[in-house]
């Protein structure tokens, strides 16, 4: 199984290595964009996201890294969703980059159009990002996204995955996991919450398009996330990054637990961090401290019923998914973790 690339080897034995945002003991080249005093703060203060919003955090992490990688020559197209609504209630905006919103389902197409226009104008210095939530990506915008992949348009599409339609009141999307409570998958009956064996993995679908670069990232592992965004900006053609962004409101979790929940999702195996090029898996981020899925689930009210008596079969199903991911992507070294 491929290992993480040389450029993102974890730095060890410097108190916190590369696990924290910054580290005064590291060389500048190993420090993150978020740790610098002159980061671009592409998504600035005053936005109206909820307390502890994972998406607001993930968007700043990703766009700041892309800004650094493109020397601030960046345009973003945004799908409808929380990220659009909380950042840009007309006439105010929290974005400090050129940013365009059109419809819920066409962000990939708008991004492709911008890329085409830049090509026509001979501007190869300006790069394009299209972004949206999981609803706008995996359901409503899926046709446009697949077309963008198909044409290999020069766009990085970033999906901020919080596993449901949060902006409209927490309805199920095709990224909602089995067992999760949403407004449309209530925890009632024999199999409460969202049905298992439904939905889709867009990262794997994107890989099937054989596009130059596909990756998954999480707000808890900043160095990994920045590495993947920077790498994506160094490649031309269609690229896809999905970032796992917990939603305190929709998931019923404490705002202060957002990063912890993202960390546990990855550490239990439910959300594997991978990289793929031209359809081939090229890297996985190893689990550092493996935990059972219950540790991840218990912090979220959307899974409360899963941990109650009578629903052990749901817990087993979720654990089986995590175990399958660990095996499929070799998330745990035989020695037991990366460090």
């Amino acid at each position, binding site marked *: 199984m491929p290992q993480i690339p040389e450029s993102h080897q974890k730095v060890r034995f410097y108190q916190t290595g590369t696990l*924290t945002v910054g580290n005064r003991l590291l060389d500048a080249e190993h420090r993150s964009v978020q740790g610098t005093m002159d980061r671009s703060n592409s998504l600035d203060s*005053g936005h109206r996201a909820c307390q502890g919003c994972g998406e607001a955090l993930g968007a700043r992490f990703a766009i700041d890294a892309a800004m650094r990688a493109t020397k601030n020559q960046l345009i973003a197209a945004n799908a409808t969703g929380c990220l659009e609504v909380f950042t840009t209630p007309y006439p105010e905006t929290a974005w400090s980059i050129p940013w365009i919103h059109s419809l819920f389902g066409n962000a990939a197409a708008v991004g492709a159009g911008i890329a085409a226009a830049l090509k026509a104008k001979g501007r190869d210095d300006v790069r394009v990002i299209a972004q949206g939530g999981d609803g706008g990506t995996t359901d409503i915008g899926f046709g446009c996204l697949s077309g963008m992949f198909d044409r290999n348009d020069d766009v990085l599409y970033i999906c901020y995955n919080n596993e449901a339609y949060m902006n409209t009141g927490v309805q199920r999307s095709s990224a909602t996991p089995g067992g999760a409570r949403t407004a449309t998958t209530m925890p009632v009956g024999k199999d409460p919450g969202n049905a298992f064996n439904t939905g889709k993995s867009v990262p794997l679908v994107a890989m099937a398009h054989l596009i130059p670069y596909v990756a998954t990232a999480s707000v808890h592992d900043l160095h990994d996330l920045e590495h993947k965004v920077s790498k994506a900006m160094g490649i031309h053609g269609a690229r896809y990054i999905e970032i796992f962004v917990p939603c305190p409101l929709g998931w019923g979790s404490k705002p*202060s637990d957002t990063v912890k929940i993202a960390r546990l999702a990855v550490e239990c195996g439910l959300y594997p961090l991978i990289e793929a090029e031209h359809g081939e898996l090229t890297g996985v981020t190893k689990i550092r401290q493996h935990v059972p899925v219950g540790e991840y689930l218990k912090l979220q009210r959307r899974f409360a019923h899963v941990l109650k008596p009578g629903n052990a079969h749901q817990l087993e199903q979720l654990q089986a998914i995590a175990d399958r991911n660990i095996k499929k992507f070799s998330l745990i070294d035989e020695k037991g973790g990366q460090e």
Partner: protein
Amino acid sequence: MKTPFAITLDVGSSLLNKTGSWRNERPVYLDRLPPCNHACPAGENIQQWLYLTEEGRYEEAWRQIMDDNPFPAVMGRVCYHPCETHCNRGQLDEAVGINAVERFLGDQALINEWQVEAGAPTGKRVMIVGAGPSGLTAAYHLRRIGHAVTVYDASPQAGGMVRYGIPKYRMPREKLRAEVARIERMGAELQLNTRIDDVVAARDEGKFDAVFLSIGAQLPKRVDIEVNGELPVLDAVSVLRNTELEEPTGMRGHVVVYGGGNTAMDVARSGVRLGAKSVTAVVFEAREHMPAHEFEVKEAREEGVELVCLRAIREVNGEQVTLEKMVPSEGRWPQPTGQFETISADVVVQALGQNVDTGLAEAISGIKVAEGAVQVGTDMQTGSPGIFAGGDMIPSERTVTTSIGHAKKAARHIDAYLRGVSYSPAEKHEVVSHDMLNTWYYSDAPRTVRPMLSVMRRQSGFAEIVGNIDQENATFEARRCMSCGNCFECDNCYGVCPDNAVKKLGPGNRFEFKYDYCKGCGLCASECPCGAIKMIPEEI
């Protein structure tokens, strides 16, 4: 206002939207008290000097230690390091090797001849009785302030029990000598071979403004053992002292040491080195209740000291020592069983603790002596105004580090006394417990093991048994510090704020919150590795 078609408002920034008004809790930065600092009897700011060591700033780290303790090279060898016992990292993997790093810094100072300067003269003079760790530390702190000091000691060399009680294999004398010399270079006057019998007369004669008593606890505690015959019964204090003075110790043949404390282990292990055929420690307590530190017992046994636990020596007949078997009881002490056994011996050494020679203090009117120790107030002052006391002679744990802590505290109060004011210590911060940390962020890093001299070489001489750690390992070990309760500028708060409401002020200057925008989600506090952020309720 002219706007394009279908546009009715000018665009604006979200910065106009002060989301701080949503907040019902606010994060605040604070410095909590790390458990190592809290546990240090000398009150060292351990976290801070480890922080400096992490960056290779060894001299600054050493000077940080010197603010509290003038003996890093000594303490890095003989301290029982309660800091490590309380280290939060101990609950994660293993405690930080604080003692080894202190020793490294102490030795660096001796190699590089780093010196601390005395303060500007104040014209005040302090008499110190006893040149042990407590007396010398008091001299050091008072010289830093600028008071003149004269230290009197009856022994030919300075160091007190560190020299005459702690064997060379744990405390090489050249290190002790060098650290004492540094205090002398600051202008502290040492009057050795000078016994003070009348403190008040000596004070008046020398025109001293204040006195610090630190004569230690040097009288051996003895139990009466009925001896029929000629078998010598020695005491540990004399044996260790004679070992130091290179005079005959009487340790020969089969040695029986009576006691299970650290001094018993010291004398037993010295016996091995002095060429005894065998050394047996007869211990009153059960093995697991021995008062000696575990590592002392372990090392003693490695060197061939035999332990006989739950035994009391009852009498000596010729070369036969009669032991009574004891059984553990509900109460504090084991109980006798009436069953006896004998072992043979050429010499018996009592190592049952030491008493204070209270005669010196009792002769001073106003000083109260109770339960064999001189009583002092919270300001370390005895009942006689201007006479302070510290170290083993006052009620305490009787370790070198405790004595050094007493002296630091006493020096502050003596200074206040000399200036006619009172000193009140700053209020202590909340101690950091393990659950205040987010330990996920710390690199997995096992403790560096200090090299040890082979058992063969330990048995045959007084060479120092615990080796140095090198510079790389010292830095590595310091970097295992989790900086409990004190910001080490990891940028996590600055990074994880979804509202960009944390301002980074630059290296060394930490961060500040932008309360105009902070929504009070608490992510910064929960993702702070070291527990240096606290959420407090807003007054609404």
